[in-house]
């Protein structure tokens, strides 16, 4: 019993949990330093913002786990908000506009998947092309300017601002349920195994008969669909459709995924890690703002943590590299003889 306890306690201090410790210390530090930070409504704000961000990058996590990348998510989210705003502005009902927005954005996801699967694009290039297309479509819809809405649908208001029992934000519950479902899919089904197999060795997974193309198609569509949903929720925050989300969604989203890759499964993107990464980023930027520290110190800290994190991964895996190196040296020595 005691042995079990100590082993689980020591586990808490392994590199897998360092980010959690940093997050914990950061929250404690900010709460002590700033009385505004620990006010319940500010904490709710943090929860709301991190839920939207986490929603945006859930699909991206799995795409990165398969060794591909998707940089379309900020532009897809902006496009979704523009399409919805355009629909509502022209007198369609909210349900129809939201549905059309999600469908249209999923088409962009389908296009990325198509380019990667059919034409063997590198996913970085395919998604650069698709994201530029999505951005310009968003601009064209509003002829280069945002679409302002007078009224936001009560359903979307309820999703964003609603609280279950007046305490727990509805959005957070929704996102947590989604993430739990995703982590069950990732940890207890074949799909999860396939994802990491593809990330490890694409040739081997192809030979093993993993339906790579289907998986990639569905991942890109999933990523675009979730990003578009997050974009529609942003509509309620800005009460307008924005063709270009000002702010650092691009860097923040990728940082959440890559920082998340340091938690729980060392070196592999996983949904729980991404969730923690998203919270981490929002806590950092919120706390810095409340302490009157300019936001760009946040950029520096995030960049620094990412580099340190990747280095930690590399060092823990360096035994692997060392073994390869000695083998290679032996080969060279043998060839020399």
């Amino acid at each position, binding site marked *: 019993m005691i042995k079990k306890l100590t082993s689980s306690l020591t586990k808490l201090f392994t590199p897998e949990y360092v980010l959690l410790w940093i997050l914990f210390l950061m929250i404690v530090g900010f709460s002590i330093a700033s009385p505004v930070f620990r006010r319940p409504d500010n904490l709710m704000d943090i929860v709301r913002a991190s839920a939207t961000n986490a929603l945006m990058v859930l699909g991206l996590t799995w795409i990165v786990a398969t060794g591909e990348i998707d940089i379309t998510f900020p532009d897809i989210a902006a496009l979704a908000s523009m399409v919805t705003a355009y629909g509502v502005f022209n007198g369609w009902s909210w349900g129809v506009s939201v549905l059309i927005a999600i469908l249209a954005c999923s088409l962009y996801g389908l296009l990325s998947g198509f*380019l990667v699967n059919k034409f063997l694009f590198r996913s970085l290039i395919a998604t650069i*092309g698709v994201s530029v*297309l999505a951005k310009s479509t968003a601009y064209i819809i509003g002829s280069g300017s945002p679409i302002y809405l007078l009224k936001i649908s009560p359903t979307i208001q309820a999703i964003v601002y609603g609280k279950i029992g007046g305490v727990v934000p509805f959005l957070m519950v929704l996102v947590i349920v989604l993430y739990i479902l995703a982590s069950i899919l990732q940890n207890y089904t074949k799909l999860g195994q396939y994802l990491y197999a593809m990330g490890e060795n694409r040739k081997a997974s192809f030979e093993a008969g993993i339906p790579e193309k289907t998986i990639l198609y569905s991942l890109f569509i999933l990523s675009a669909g979730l990003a578009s949903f997050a974009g529609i929720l942003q509509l309620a925050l800005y009460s307008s459709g924005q063709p270009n989300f000002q702010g650092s969604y691009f860097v923040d989203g990728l940082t959440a995924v890559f920082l998340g890759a340091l938690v729980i499964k060392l070196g592999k993107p996983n949904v729980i890690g991404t969730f923690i990464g998203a919270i981490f980023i929002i806590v950092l930027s919120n706390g810095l703002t409340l302490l009157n520290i300019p936001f760009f110190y946040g*950029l520096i800290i995030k960049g620094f943590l990412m580099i340190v994190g990747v280095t930690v991964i590399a060092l823990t895996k360096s035994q692997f590299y060392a073994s390869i190196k000695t083998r290679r040296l032996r080969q060279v020595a043998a060839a020399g003889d």
Partner: protein
Amino acid sequence: MSKRAKQFNRDWISVIIFLCILVGIMAIFSFLAPQFMTANNLLRALKHLSVTSLAALGLTFVVVVGHSDMSFAFVSCFAGMTMSYFIGIVGWPPVPSIIMGLLGGMIFGFLNGIAVGRFKLPDMIVTIGIGSFAWGLAYLYNKGNYIYTNFLTSGIIKFSDGRLLGIPFPVIYLFSFYIVAYLLLHRTKYGRGFYSVGSNRIAAVFSGIKIERYIIAAFVISCTLASFTNMVMTAAQGNGNVKGGLVLLLPAWAAVFIGISVFKKPTVIGTFLGAFLLSIMQNGFTLLNAPFYIMDLIVGLTLILSIVISRIEFRKKVKEVSPIDTFQAAA
């Protein structure tokens, strides 16, 4: 036809198709907008070309060694702000300030190279991390505000507006850098080294090529050229801006990959042609009074279409060879 000649035909057919498309586009523009084919306008297009194409040239080296660099645009913001800081706030003359800026860019390129080449860290994550770090540092100089004091009097504007024998300076930078890069990458053994690191790393190790140094050199070249580009942009705009360099990211990637789709591998000339196509189209659409956001559409469509076309051709070529090659292409 001999086998060699057949190979020659296959390799050049995409180049010929691309040049036809380029000439066709230019013909359409000169038909729609009469002022398109004037010397003044072409010089303006070339000046614009010098901005995207120099960043793309640096990126070409990184792609040649088989890596990706997402940081060059962010690093160029840092370099541009460093230069603006020395000119505007410290009050140095332009040339030493430019050297300080380039040094700043070079240091971040070196860090990228060390992390990717020496420590074998994943390039995408590291370059985004270092990029975000550098961008944050760029804000420190003036708390994110524009720097424009001293700009008019220090003579930095000359670096963008000056002319030599009637040719604007940026056009001269453009051609001199491209010629040097062409000679380096395609006419020396070092160029072969870059390509061998990218195509078969294990073979490169065993033929005694120092892989790390090539990777570091590629990242340093990428960040330094992007920094230089941002200097030219800063000089043209007359102020230092923390977000000025971000516009480089997507067009540079697009130019490199249009080049790859033409020549089937990253080359200096291919990158030039890709950047040239994008610049000409931007210039033409501006003359036609198209709104600014059309440009994104053009970059995206051109990138996707050029690669799709090249892949169709490529797949046919593979089918003729052997089933094993088809498998390798699929994997």
